């Protein structure tokens, strides 16, 4: 047992070091451009001030309410998604219940309940009930991750590890108890302890009684078991066992398992399976403790904190002001995130992901990538431009922020991340394309654009050849264009004017047309299209050219990743 004590302290040490490293990161990490870096000292000061204000101010009440309503009872989830609420509630209350009542029984349950004995009800039964709650919660989690489209696509190894840890801890506990129920050696030990004898003959009636009623698998009983023996066993049971041991059937899951193990009882008893499972259960718990600060389960500590912080801080001061407290709040976000996927399933632009396939569109994934970018810039240029595409497709609807069960101000993170991306040469895709294309290329450049020009008429309905073939160069489109009218010398500023673009497209000169600043400065007011006497869909042609530039850019990036961001 010495080794287990040492293992426990080792796990506790790893847990504490991990805790420190995680919290240290809150004061160190910058989500946002590096020139807005807030030193750890100032962050710590702001956090300390905020903490004192919250604890000793009126917000303490608010914080308490938020803690109970949003962190413990998860009231904001219940309306959103009942199954998710149920799943979390089962796992949370089951696991916390087991931790307090079972794992910390010496520290908590015993002092609280003078008559506490682990094998007496309600504790005997409750342990199984709580374990079962966790297992049902785990099953629901797995089901949701498989069944719901966007959740399945975003599930990663960290989520799987969290679920596996929970499962192994609980399942090994049940298996351990099941193996104990059938174990004859354990029966013998306990009989020696509580009956005060290890004389097989004296113990035999009790053993027969336990074998007949409580599932102990006895190898060979050297007597005939009849009514009388069982009655004798019953009185021995009442005398020596009953006060401290309820019927094992109370542990309904473990007892069920023990029936499953029963055919293998002699093997179990020979190899002392109960001892092996005991080690497995304890080592699983210690491993869980050590790994906690590095796992998704760390949210147990940080999510309530995040909920309270966002409740007591003013959410309206998001975009303009960037305070030290907010820098810390942003850096905490990944630890508070449970990767539950609520943001991604409700995201306004989530459907776009189904077509573009860029995971950086989905908030839950964008958060992971944003932290990779902030960490030590492990992202390659290609990944950064994908992150940029995903980040700038966001329409700032704040739905993710308002829906996050952990109270993370995601929108604030997106703003900061975009500032960082802009600074690092990954601006909004529209601006990147405008810059890349906003000059006239007179030659038909490469094969890609030729291929695009050939295929797109089929794929984009408004780009059908007839759309511009009827143009007779009356220049109405150019004459009514408010953008053209804004420039004293529009030909120079816009490179090509709308009617010239129509002509270029009519001739199949896509690169020439795409190079006109005009297409990027079009306001899409549709005056040109409305007034065209020939019914040319002028604005749609400009829109399509932007689509072509985007597609061409995506193709060139996928073929030569290094050139892409140059």
């Amino acid at each position: 047992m010495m080794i287990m004590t040492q293992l426990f302290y080792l796990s506790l040490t790893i847990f504490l070091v991990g805790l420190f490293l995680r919290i240290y990161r809150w004061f160190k990490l910058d989500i946002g451009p590096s020139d807005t870096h807030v030193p750890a000292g100032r962050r710590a000061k702001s956090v300390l001030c905020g903490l004192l204000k919250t604890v000793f101010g009126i917000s303490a009440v608010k914080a308490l309410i938020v803690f109970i309503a949003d962190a413990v009872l998860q009231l904001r989830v219940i309306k959103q998604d009942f199954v998710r609420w149920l799943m979390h509630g089962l796992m949370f209350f089951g696991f916390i219940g087991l931790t307090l009542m079972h794992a910390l029984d010496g520290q908590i349950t015993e002092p609280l309940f003078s008559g506490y004995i682990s094998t007496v009800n309600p504790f005997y039964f409750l342990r199984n009930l709580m374990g079962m709650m966790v297992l049902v919660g785990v099953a629901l989690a797995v089901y949701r991750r498989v069944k719901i489209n966007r959740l399945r696509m975003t599930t990663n190894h960290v989520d799987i590890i969290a679920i596996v840890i929970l499962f192994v801890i609980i399942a090994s506990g049940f298996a351990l108890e099941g193996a104990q129920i059938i174990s004859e050696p354990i029966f013998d030990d306990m009989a020696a302890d509580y009956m005060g004898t290890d004389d097989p003959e004296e113990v035999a009636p009790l053993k027969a009684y336990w074998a007949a009623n409580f599932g102990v698998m006895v190898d060979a009983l050297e007597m005939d078991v009849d009514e009388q023996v069982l009655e004798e066993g019953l009185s021995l049971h009442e005398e020596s066992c009953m006060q401290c041991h309820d019927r094992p059937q109370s542990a309904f899951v473990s007892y069920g398992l023990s029936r499953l193990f029963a055919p293998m009882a002699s093997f179990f008893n020979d190899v002392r399976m109960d001892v092996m499972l005991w080690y497995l259960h304890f080592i699983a718990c210690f491993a869980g403790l050590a790994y906690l600060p590095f796992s998704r389960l760390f949210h147990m500590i940080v999510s309530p904190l995040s909920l309270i912080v966002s409740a007591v801080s003013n959410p309206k001061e998001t975009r303009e002001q960037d305070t030290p407290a907010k820098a810390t709040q942003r850096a905490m976000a990944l630890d508070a995130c449970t990767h539950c996927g609520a943001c991604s399933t409700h995201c306004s632009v989530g459907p776009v992901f189904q077509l573009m396939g860029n995971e950086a569109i989905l908030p839950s994934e964008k958060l992971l990538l944003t932290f990779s970018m902030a960490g030590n810039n492990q992202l390659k240029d290609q990944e950064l431009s994908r992150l940029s595409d995903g980040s700038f497709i966001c329409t700032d609807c704040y739905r993710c922020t308002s829906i996050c069960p952990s109270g993370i101000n995601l929108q604030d993170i997106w703003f900061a991340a975009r500032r960082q991306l802009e600074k690092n040469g990954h601006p909004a895709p529209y601006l990147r394309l405008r810059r890349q294309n906003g000059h006239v290329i007179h030659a038909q450049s490469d094969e890609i654009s030729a291929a695009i020009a050939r295929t797109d008429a089929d794929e984009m309905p408004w780009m059908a050849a007839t759309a511009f073939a009827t143009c007779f160069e009356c220049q109405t489109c150019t004459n009514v264009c408010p953008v053209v009218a804004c420039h004293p010398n529009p030909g120079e500023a816009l490179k090509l004017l709308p009617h010239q673009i129509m002509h270029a497209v009519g001739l199949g000169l896509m690169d020439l047309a795409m190079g006109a600043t005009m297409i990027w400065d079009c306001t899409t007011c549709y005056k040109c299209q409305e007034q065209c006497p020939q019914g040319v869909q002028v604005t749609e042609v400009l829109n399509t050219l932007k689509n072509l530039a985007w597609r061409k850019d995506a193709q060139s990036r996928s073929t030569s990743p290094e050139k892409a961001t140059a």
Partner: protein
Amino acid sequence: MTYALFLGCKIPYYLAHYGTSTRAILKALDVDCVDIEFNCCGYPTRMLDADAYLFSAARNFALAEARGLDILTPCKCCFGSLQHARHWSQEQPDLKARINRLLAEEGLHWTGTANVRHLLSVLIHDVGPDAIAAKVRRPYKGLKIAPHYGCHALRPSKVTRFDDPLAPSIFEKLIDLTGAQSVQWNKRLECCGNPLWEKNSSLSVALMNQKLADAKLSGANYLCVACTYCQIQFDAVQHLQAAQNGNGLKLASILYPQLLGMSLGCDAATLGLDQNKLDIGGIENFLDQSKSLADDGPALTRTL
């Protein structure tokens, strides 16, 4: 009359009072709204990936169809974007089939039965001028309003079918119903400039300033809009410009539901009169003080 209310991405957070004021006037006019968790109309992705845009738009229709409702939106860009999707789906059955294959992954289907209506169309065609006029309790007196039409509802008219693209009139009619006087101005059908904001911001502001100067010449007290993005431009962007460059404020913009709501006797706080970046509180001075709300009909709560 029941519609699925489509607020779009910007209203819930940035322009919450456009949402609350729209709900307030619809309630006052006995139009019921159902809230569905829609996604983005697709407009922002349309410039990059038209397929992704169409899918976004189609998914909203599929959601509305599942409830058997038409969509009502107060945003002209959302309106235009959704109307375009309907238009192309009718022109291109293949496209629709492709989108339906993707929608089927979520158990959704887009048949094309649901329509999209802009707020102003619903007011003028479905509720009707008479019904609105009957509910106006406190008309404005001496208030001049410059209506700004908004491009994406008006054009391309073959697709949007909103009003006469060259000589539209429904907005003027709706403004006049409140007792205010709609004024004609040269640039009333031009772009507000917002689509270029943060893409080419100086051009965006130049377009806006041309309009503001022209509207000012018309003698209007306020601009009036019925579009999320036009309001962001004329309110937030104009406010930002004034703060940065010290330009005198030229003309504040009021949302149509705010204008109508005040004359219907809706609560000023619900209409969010104090939520605009540029002060529009002065609008209350134009309300006909001789007509008291308590005089007729059931009392609508309102604080003056």
